[in-house]
Structure formats: structure tokens, C-alpha cells
């Protein structure tokens, strides 16, 4: 039987590890390569790096980070942030990423998903979607709207329609990130995660809001997620990856315990 995955998300800015709170403030909290290695040795199943470097002339720093991680960490990892073309995707895969992660650029130009999927294979293309809860309307019948640019810009797109389109265009996995829950540590957006999981047939990774082990349990059961993304709850040392996995295992969730 397939295990549920615990995935750690590392935001990287100018080569340093950063953590955002409600997508707005960010502060640097260390070396992403050392952190990746620490989590790998502690039994993490997968890693996601988001490059939040603002200036494009510093983008190559991320390629160095990816190269260093790939030499030391032998679990899958994806990289997102700033991917606008197949060329960008190929650079990251060549540097050692297993998968690439597209978000705002795919909303602005949906063909990016088809192009990347065709060029590098659907299994290597992760579609990340930042989602905000809004009033139900004709344009947004699910009550969940896709937002871009770190949650600042509403798009008028219905989130459920977008994830279905994303799968059809060739995304191999989905990250569902609730910007309402992100950074709150009050739990994942269960209703949203479940709606997405029931709308697509590709794996769904829940993101945003994890603060307690119970939150992971809830999203992997009630939320129907295949994987749970964690960030601040492990970055600041409140919980360890291995501790979370043991806790989930004791609650009857199948996770990988031997590594």
C-alpha cells in the first residue's frame, strides 16, 4: 500500500532559506542545503523549493542550491518560482531537480503546462495553485478563487475549474495552497483540499496552515490529500519530521518509517 508523503517546503531567497507569514513578511532562517540534508536524514519523503528571489539576475543562485542539494539528498525534490518556459524547466531538471513546479506563470499562460508536460513528462510537472476563499458567484461557483503573485492578485478564475484544466493540460501532481490558512498554523483548509482531491485523479499535496500533528492527520484523512506539506512547524524546531511520522503512524496512517 502506498504511504502518505510528508513534504517539507523551503522558500529560498537569494540562496537563503526564508519563511513567509501570510505571504507578506519574509525573514531569512538559514541555509537551505543544510536544512534539506537534515530533513532527508530524518526521514522526509520529498522536498519542495520555492525560489522567491525578486531580481532575475540572481536566479542562477538557485541553480547552485539545486546542484548542491542533488549531490547530498537522494529523495525527490521539486523546484518552483520563476519558471516561464521549457528552457527554465530544463535548467532546473539538469541541475538535479526531480520535478518542476509552476504557479502564477501557468495561470497567466496556461500553455506553459502543456509545453512543460510534453517536454519533460507529466510526472515531472507539478501545478501549484494559490487559492483564496471568496463569495460564491457565477464566475467563481466553488467559492474558491485562484490568486497569483504570492496571493496579492485575484484572477477571477474558479480554483476547481483551474485544477481540472491543469490536469487535462498535463500536470502530474497538484499543490493546493490556501492563502487564507498559510502561515496561520491553525490547520489546512480541509474543505478546499477535499474538493480538489475529489475533482482530479492526480495526487494532491495539501499546503498552508500546518501547525500541529492533528492538522496533518485531518488533511490526509478528511481532506483526502495524498501528501501534506509542512514548513514552519518543522523549520523552527517545534516538531521533527521523524516525530510527525511516528505520531501519524500511531494514529493508523501508513507512512514510511524506515529510511
Amino acid at each position, binding site marked *: 500500500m502506498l504511504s502518505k508523503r510528508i513534504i517539507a517546503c523551503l522558500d529560498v531567497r537569494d540562496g537563503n532559506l526564508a519563511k513567509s507569514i501570510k505571504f507578506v513578511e519574509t525573514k531569512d532562517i538559514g541555509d537551505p542545503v543544510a536544512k534539506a540534508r537534515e530533513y532527508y536524514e530524518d526521514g522526509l519523503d520529498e522536498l519542495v523549493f520555492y525560489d522567491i528571489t525578486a531580481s532575475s539576475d540572481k536566479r542562477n543562485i538557485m541553480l547552485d542550491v539545486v546542484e548542491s542539494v542533488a549531490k547530498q539528498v537522494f529523495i525527490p525534490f521539486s523546484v518552483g518560482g520563476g519558471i516561464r518556459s521549457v528552457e527554465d524547466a530544463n535548467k532546473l531538471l539538469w541541475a538535479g531537480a526531480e520535478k518542476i513546479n509552476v504557479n502564477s506563470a501557468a495561470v497567466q499562460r496556461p500553455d506553459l503546462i502543456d509545453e512543460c508536460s510534453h517536454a519533460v*513528462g507529466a510526472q515531472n510537472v507539478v501545478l501549484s495553485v494559490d487559492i483564496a476563499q471568496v463569495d460564491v458567484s457565477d464566475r467563481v461557483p466553488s467559492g474558491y478563487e485562484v490568486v497569483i503573485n504570492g496571493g496579492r492578485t485575484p484572477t477571477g478564475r474558479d480554483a476547481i475549474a483551474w485544477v481540472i484544466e491543469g490536469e487535462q493540460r498535463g500536470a502530474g501532481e497538484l499543490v493546493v495552497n490556501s492563502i487564507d490558512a498559510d502561515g496561520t498554523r491553525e490547520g489546512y483548509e480541509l474543505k478546499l483540499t477535499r474538493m480538489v482531491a475529489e475533482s482530479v485523479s492526480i495526487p494532491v499535496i495539501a499546503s498552508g496552515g500546518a501547525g500541529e500533528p492533528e492538522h496533518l492527520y485531518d488533511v490526509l484523512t478528511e481532506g483526502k490529500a495524498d501528501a501534506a506539506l509542512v514548513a514552519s512547524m518543522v523549520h523552527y524546531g517545534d516538531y521533527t519530521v521523524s516525530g510527525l511520522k511516528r505520531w501519524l503512524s500511531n494514529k493508523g496512517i501508513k507512512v514510511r518509517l524506515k529510511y
Partner: protein
Amino acid sequence: MERIVLAIVDYDAGNLRSVQRACQHVGISDAEITADPERVRVADKVIFPGVGSSESAVVTLQARGLDDALTEYYHSGKPLLGICLGSQIVLDHSEEGDKECLGLLAGRVKRFQLADASLKVPHIGWNSVDIVRDHPVLRNIKSGDEFYFVHSYFVEPADEATVYGRTNYGGEFCSMLGRNNLFTTQFHLEKSGRLGLGILDAFKEWDGTLPC
């Protein structure tokens, strides 16, 4: 230090550098990514990796003359390790694109047809492997250990005696396969942490023979 010339077969199917890095990590410093059939023929060890579609992969292998090189290499008796797509192409035939494959081992490649709608295809993530019979490359792992899978098709060998491992995903499928000097894993051992590297480390020491 003993030098090992290991060839990683390049047929435009996936991230071969991940395999090369994993080789370097277990001490195979001169693992070479190559699309040259001559390099494959003369290598002491060969890894046949790959992700993606077997349909286009077989076309590329043929165009580069790598299909014949791999077949010759296999018949030389030297160790050959197939990973993921590489574990599928060594069989006779794949449902994917209804394609004839290398035929080093009798069997077919089939797509998952799962009755349980909650099980997704591709099968992505960590799953456990039950070891069916011992093999020199499995000396560092135990039955039930978990490895990282990404695939929509699985192998169905004709001969049960070639099955070394099984995995459950809406039913059992063969996740490790072997015959003579050939051993394959459906999972990505290069992305499966310390235990995956353990298989590679044992492959480094394997001479291609099986204990009687």
C-alpha cells in the same frame, strides 16, 4: 582503488544525472552517461534507467543502435541494472504504444487498470517491496522496505522464477525482476534514500553471477 567502468545508457529518457550522482555517492566515481553503443559494449557494468514513454524510448534506442548494444551486452554476462522504464523495455512487448521491446526476458508491460477509483494513476510515492527471493544486489535491504515509485505501467513476466519483488497497489505487481546477469527495479532506487543507495552499493560489488 579498483576502477569500475560503468555506463549509464542515454536515450533521452529522464534525468540520468540523478543516477550518476547516486553512483558517485556509493563510490562509483567514473559512472559515464553515454549514448554511444560502443561504450555500452565495452563497459564492465551498465545501468539502463529511464522515465517517460516506452514508445518513444524504443524508437530512440533503435535510432542510436543502443538496442543491439544492450542485447549484446546482456549476452556477455556482465551485470546489467534496469530502473523504472529500463525495467519495462527489457521485456518482449509493451501495451504503451503497442510496442515490441528488447525481449531480454519473456513478458509484457501492462497499464494499471484499478477497480478502486481512489487509487490514482500514475502510482506516485513510497511503497513497500516484498522480497520474493534472495539476490546479491538485495543484501542491504529487507522485505517490506519502502522505495519511490513513479509509473503508470508495470511488468508482467512470463516466468514466475524471474520475479524478485512484489508491491501492492490495488493488487500485486512485480516491482523487481531478474534473470542471470540482469536485475531491474520498477522503483527509482536513485531517489529512494539510503535503502535505494544500498541496492546500488550492492550492484557495485555484484559480478553478474547468482549463487547456486
